[in-house]
């Protein structure tokens, strides 16, 4: 008899429990959906703890620590917006594209603290061009390193080489700048730039490709060769963002399942074909993500760029010309900004940099995450 009783009653209790779990359970044993990954045993044990007050206080404190990250981002945004009000009210959106024309020389004036002219176009241009030069140099190298380290390298070399490439990331920006000023810039001026200048100003090449505007005296390698300038900034940025791009590319390439490689090899592919079809094609979204992340780092890089870009607020097509970048103008002029409008204009440049890097980084994270999600966290 008791057996049948149980049989009849069981479905009812289950139904009651699933329809309204909160009402049937005692306080503290809430089966919320949010706590899904925590097992039943642990929930039971939590509820039995005699120190629920301390536990609640502790978890609240930890939550406060985590929430501080939100608070930091919000505070930065708030302060930047607040302090750039003055410049925003004076110039509006034209801050980013307008310029004054000098009545005597007919040359554009973008940035002249003495006359109160503050237009940020040359800084946007300098940041963009130096970062693009960096990407053009760094991306093929970084992907090459990642391919070598994940697919081709003998096992005993893999660890040391990976460590060395990541050591590049540990070098401070200012040390890169120091090295660039005293070693890289003279090297570019004496050895590297003359080669480009000769190629780009070769009479035959100018005749053949003059219509494109990238060769000749007004092309990418025209004008005086200081050594300093966009080219130097691009090269040093490339060295600095290489480890970021290559380590993330390695991560997404490692996330490609081995079955993909084995399938390609089983069909008779050579190793390179296996890498191209099995690995790179599957990892391409993540690789794009890592490149964008490198771009984000290049956009915000300050000290090394400030030391080699030449610090002249002008726009010129030539990569040999002196330029200026958003981050380096802030670093150089912030502490000597005499009046409020000057300071406010610099902070507005900072705000623009903040917004751009947040967008770029968010985009990159989403792309990388799309590929590596589901694979376990890498530890090294």
């Amino acid at each position, binding site marked *: 008899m008791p057996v049948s009783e149980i049989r009849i009653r069981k479905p009812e209790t289950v139904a009651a429990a699933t329809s309204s779990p909160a009402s049937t359970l005692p306080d503290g044993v809430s089966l919320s959906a949010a706590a899904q990954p925590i097992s039943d045993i642990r929930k039971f*044990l939590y509820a039995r703890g005699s120190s629920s007050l301390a536990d609640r206080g502790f*978890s609240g404190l930890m939550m406060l620590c985590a929430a501080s990250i939100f608070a930091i981002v919000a505070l930065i945004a708030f302060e930047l917006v607040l302090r750039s009000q003055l410049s925003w009210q004076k110039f509006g959106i034209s801050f980013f594209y307008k310029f004054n024309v000098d009545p005597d020389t007919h040359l554009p004036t973008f940035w002249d603290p003495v006359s109160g002219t503050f237009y940020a176009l040359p800084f946007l241009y300098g940041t963009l061009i130096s970062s693009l030069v960096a990407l053009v140099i760094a991306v093929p*190298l970084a992907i090459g390193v990642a391919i070598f380290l994940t697919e*081709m390298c003998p096992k005993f070399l893999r660890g040391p080489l990976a460590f060395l490439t990541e050591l590049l990331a*540990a070098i*401070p920006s*200012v040390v890169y*700048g120091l090295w660039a000023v005293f070693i890289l810039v003279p090297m570019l001026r004496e050895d590297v730039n003359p080669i480009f200048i000769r190629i780009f100003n070769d009479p035959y090449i100018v005749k053949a490709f003059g219509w494109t505007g990238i060769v000749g005296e007004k092309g990418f390698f025209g004008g005086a060769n200081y050594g300093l300038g966009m080219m130097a900034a691009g090269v040093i940025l490339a060295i600095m963002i290489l480890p970021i791009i290559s380590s993330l590319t390695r991560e997404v390439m490692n996330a490609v399942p081995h079955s993909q490689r084995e399938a390609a090899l089983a069909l008779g592919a050579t190793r390179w074909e296996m890498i191209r079809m099995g690995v790179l094609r599957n990892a391409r979204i993540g690789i794009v993500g890592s490149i964008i992340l490198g771009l984000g780092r290049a956009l915000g890089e300050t000290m090394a760029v400030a030391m080699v870009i030449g610090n002249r607020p002008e726009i010129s097509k030539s990569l040999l010309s002196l330029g200026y970048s958003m981050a380096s103008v802030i670093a150089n002029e912030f502490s000597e900004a005499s009046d409020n409008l000057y300071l406010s204009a610099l902070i507005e440049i900072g705000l623009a940099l903040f917004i751009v890097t947040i967008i770029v980084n968010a985009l*990159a994270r989403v792309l990388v995450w799309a590929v590596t999600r589901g694979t376990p966290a890498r530890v090294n």
Partner: protein
Amino acid sequence: MKASLRQSKTRSAMRAATDHVATGLAILATILVIAPLFAIFGYLVFKGASSLNLDFFLKIPKPVGEEGGGMANAIVGSAVLLGVASLLGIPVGIGGGIYLAEFGRGTRFANAIRFTADVLNGVPSIVMGIAIYSLIVVPQHHFSAFSGGVALGIMMIPTVTRTTEEMLLMVPNSVREAALGLGVPNWRSVLSITLKTASPGVITGCMLAFARVAGETAPLIFTALGNQFWSTSLREPIAALPLQIYVYAISPYEDQHRLAWAGALVLIALIVIAVSLVRYVASRGILKGAS
């Protein structure tokens, strides 16, 4: 028949050649990437070591034009700044990591924080400097070591949070359940069981964040400002090693260039020693609590 066979032979030869070319290019890329590393370290040792002497570690900078002098105040200043930064960044960062791994696992709030931490990691340090300038320096009306330390500390938080979370997630659930089963309150189990088990990884993460901010210059330019004299007060402008390297590197004096190289060598040596020491210790499991 014969022609097609020959064709397929040349084709496979082509494919093999492409394979070799690709391998060669990958090796070349690796060499090109490693080369600057050796170039930088080589020049640091070559140029820096010759200017290093005892005075460098014991004396403060001499006025321009006088020979000698050192960076003792900058080394001590960096230590003060990093101390303040660690006091702020490490506890808050570890707390955030604990929340993400132990309490907020899978919730939307935790995912948003994780994402924000990653994005904050990419915010340029110069922007952080402006924010701290307008938050602390402007209300106080003077540059101070405290504001520089806070700027560096804030930059540590996202890195420490993310590595702590990753390390805690690797601790098996059975460890937590065993602690709770013995009647240990949850906060105690998190601090003395889970966190302790993960401590080698967490410490490595903290050291990496530390090494990263140790070389930061940009946020210090208008918070800590730099100082030519002895100062350890948190309310005064303070010298810092990276800041001093920057000032000397762009100065026109040969003597200061040599000091800049020496300073860079010391900075790099400190960072590399810190990182590799921690890696070695963590991998050996010598740290307490590593099982």
